C-alpha cells in the first residue's frame, strides 16, 4: 500500500472492526476448546478462565476415547463428508458445464429447476426421504447419508459453478475441439483447472453443513455402526445428567478434521483470488 492511500485513523478503525468481529466469532470456539481441558468443577466454577494447573483435567478426552466408539464415528463422518463432497463437486461441475456450454431445448428451465433446490430446504422432504430409504433398504447405511447430502449440495454447486464456467474462454474450448479433444477431456483438462478456485468455494460451503449435520444421521442412520461424530456426541447429553467434559472434548475433536479440510481448500481459494487479480 502506498503512503498516499494509507490513513492511520482509517487503518485503526478497520482493524478494530475486524478484530471485534474475529473475537465474537472465535469466542464460542475458544470457550469450547478451553473448557474441554478442565475438570467438571473447573467448568462450572469459572467457565471463562483458561485451565489452570488446578482445574486442568483430561477426563473429557479419556471419556470420549474410552467410552463409545469415537474413532469409528469420526471415520463415518469423514467418509460421508468426503464422499458427498466428491459427488457434489463432480456432478455439480458436470451439470454446470452442460448448462453453460451447450444450447439445448429447456436449458434455462433446467437451470431454474436445479436452482430451486437452493430455496427449498431438503429437510421438508424428510418423511418422503425416510420412506424412500426404508423402501430401498438403505436405512442405517452411510450410502443413505451420502445420497441425501449429494442432493442437498448440488443446487448451490451448480448455481455457483455455472456462473464461473460461463466465464471460461470459449476460444479455449474451441481450440481443444479443433485439436480433436473429446468433450470430457475439454471438461477435465481445460475447464476444471480454470474454475478450481470456485470449486474450492463450493467445497467449503458444501462441506461444513454436512459435517455438522445432526438431522439426517439421527433419522436415517442412528445405528451404532453408522453414527457420525455430531450424533455420537449426543451420547453424553442425558435427560438429567450431561457429561459436559465429554461433550466439549468431542466437539473440540470434531473441529479438527473440518479445519484441516478447510485449510486445504482455502489455500486454493486465496491462490485463485490473487492469481486472478494480478494476472
Amino acid at each position: 500500500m502506498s503512503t498516499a492511500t494509507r490513513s492511520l485513523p482509517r487503518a485503526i478503525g478497520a482493524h478494530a472492526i475486524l478484530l471485534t468481529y474475529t473475537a465474537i466469532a472465535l469466542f464460542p470456539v475458544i470457550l469450547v476448546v478451553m473448557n474441554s481441558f478442565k475438570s467438571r468443577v473447573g467448568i462450572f466454577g469459572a467457565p471463562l478462565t483458561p485451565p489452570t494447573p488446578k482445574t486442568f483435567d483430561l477426563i473429557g478426552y479419556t471419556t470420549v476415547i474410552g467410552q463409545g466408539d469415537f474413532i469409528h464415528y469420526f471415520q463415518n463422518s469423514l467418509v460421508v463428508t468426503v464422499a458427498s463432497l466428491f459427488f457434489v463437486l463432480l456432478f455439480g461441475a458436470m451439470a454446470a458445464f452442460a448448462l453453460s456450454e451447450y444450447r439445448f431445448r429447456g436449458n434455462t428451465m433446467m437451470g431454474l429447476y436445479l436452482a430451486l433446490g437452493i430455496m427449498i430446504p431438503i429437510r421438508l422432504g424428510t418423511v418422503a426421504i425416510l420412506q424412500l430409504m426404508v423402501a430401498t433398504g438403505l436405512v442405517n447405511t452411510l450410502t443413505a447419508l451420502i445420497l441425501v447430502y449429494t442432493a442437498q449440495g448440488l443446487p448451490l454447486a451448480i448455481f455457483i459453478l455455472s456462473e464461473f464456467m460461463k466465464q471460461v474462454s470459449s476460444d479455449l474450448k474451441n481450440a481443444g475441439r479443433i485439436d480433436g479433444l473429446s468433450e470430457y477431456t475439454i471438461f477435465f483438462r481445460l475447464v476444471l483447472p480454470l474454475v478450481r478456485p470456485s470449486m474450492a468455494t463450493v467445497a467449503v460451503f458444501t462441506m461444513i453443513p454436512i459435517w455438522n449435520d445432526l438431522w439426517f444421521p439421527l433419522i436415517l442412520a442412528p445405528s451404532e455402526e453408522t453414527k457420525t461424530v455430531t450424533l455420537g456426541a449426543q451420547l453424553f447429553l442425558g435427560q438429567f445428567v450431561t457429561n459436559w467434559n465429554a461433550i466439549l472434548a468431542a466437539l473440540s475433536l470434531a473441529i479438527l478434521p473440518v479445519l484441516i479440510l478447510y485449510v486445504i481448500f482455502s489455500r486454493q481459494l486465496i491462490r485463485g483470488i490473487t492469481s486472478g487479480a494480478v494476472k
Partner: protein
Amino acid sequence: MGSLKIENVKKAFGPVEVLKGIDLEVTDGEFVVFVGPSGCGKSTLLRVIAGLEDSTSGRVLIDGTDVSVTPPAKRGIAMVFQTYALYPHLTVKNNMALGLKQAGTPAAEIERRIKIASAMLSLEPYIERRPAELSGGQRQRVAIGRAVVREPKLFLFDEPLSNLDAALRVNTRLEIAQLHRRLKATMIYVTHDQVEAMTLADKIVVLNAGRIEQIGSPMELYNSPANEFVAGFIGSPKMNFVDGARLGETAKTIGVRPEHVTVDANSGAWKGTVVHAEHLGADTNLYLDCEKAGLITVRIFGVYNAETGATLYATPDAAKTYRFGPDGKVLK
C-alpha cells in the same frame, strides 16, 4: 489442396437470422479476409467453416468434400483465436504438439514440425515455457505456431490481432503476411479493421447484416465499391456522403473520399468553415461544415495550416465521385 466452397449457408439462433444465405468460393492459396462491422456474422461464418457451429442450412465444401457433418478436428483446418486460447497447463511445445498427438502423428514427425514452426516464428527460446510466462505477442505467435504444425488445408484466423497493442499489431500483421507467402496456404481471416483487410487480403469479402455486400481485391473495393455500405466501410477516413438533392443531382447520394477533395482559400465548389483540424504530420484531416454539402472530411497530404473557424472552399474531384441510387447501389 485447400479450396473452400460455401453454398447458400444460413445460420439462425432461434428467431435471429445471423447468416442469410452466403455463397463463396475460395481457391487454393488465397488469402481471404472477411470484414464487416460487429454483429455482421463474419465470426459466425468462420465458426461454421471450422465446424464449431452447425449451419441451419447450406453446405460447406473443403477440397470438394462436403464437411457439413465432419467434426472440426477432421476437417483439416487450424484456427487462431483472438484470445490466443493456449492451453494454460502445457508448455509452448506441448501446446503445439497436442493436436498432432490426438491425431496419432508419430513422435519424430511432431518433433520435426515443431522445429520448423518454432524456427519460422522465432519461438525457440520459449519452447519450454508455459503461456503465463509469455507476452501477448509471443502468445499469439505460439497460437499461430500451433496452427502451422497441423499443416492444415485451411488456416482460419478469428481477429488474431485485436488483443495486441498498436505496434505489435503491425509486426504480427507483417509476420502473418510473410507466413502466407512462405506456406502458400489458403487462409481465411476475420477482422473488423479495414486496414488489416486492405493490407493482408488477396480478396476481401465485405459482410453486413448476414449478407455479402461485395467480394473483390482491396483495390477493386476501394476504386469501385458496389454500394454505399462498401464505399463507407473501405477507406479511412470514411467516404463523405452528401444528399444528392442538396447538390441538385439526380442521384440519391453523392459520395467522395476525403482524399479526393481539394481545398482552396479563395474559390471552389463548396464554401465551408473549418470545424476541426487533425494534424498527423504525413497528412492533415480537416472537418468542414459546408453550406451546400454539410459536414465533410477532407484529407490533405502533408502539412496544411487551417485555423478553426476559417472559411475554405472545397472542390470534389469529379472523376472520383460516386453516385448512389435510392437502394444504395452505385449508379453507372
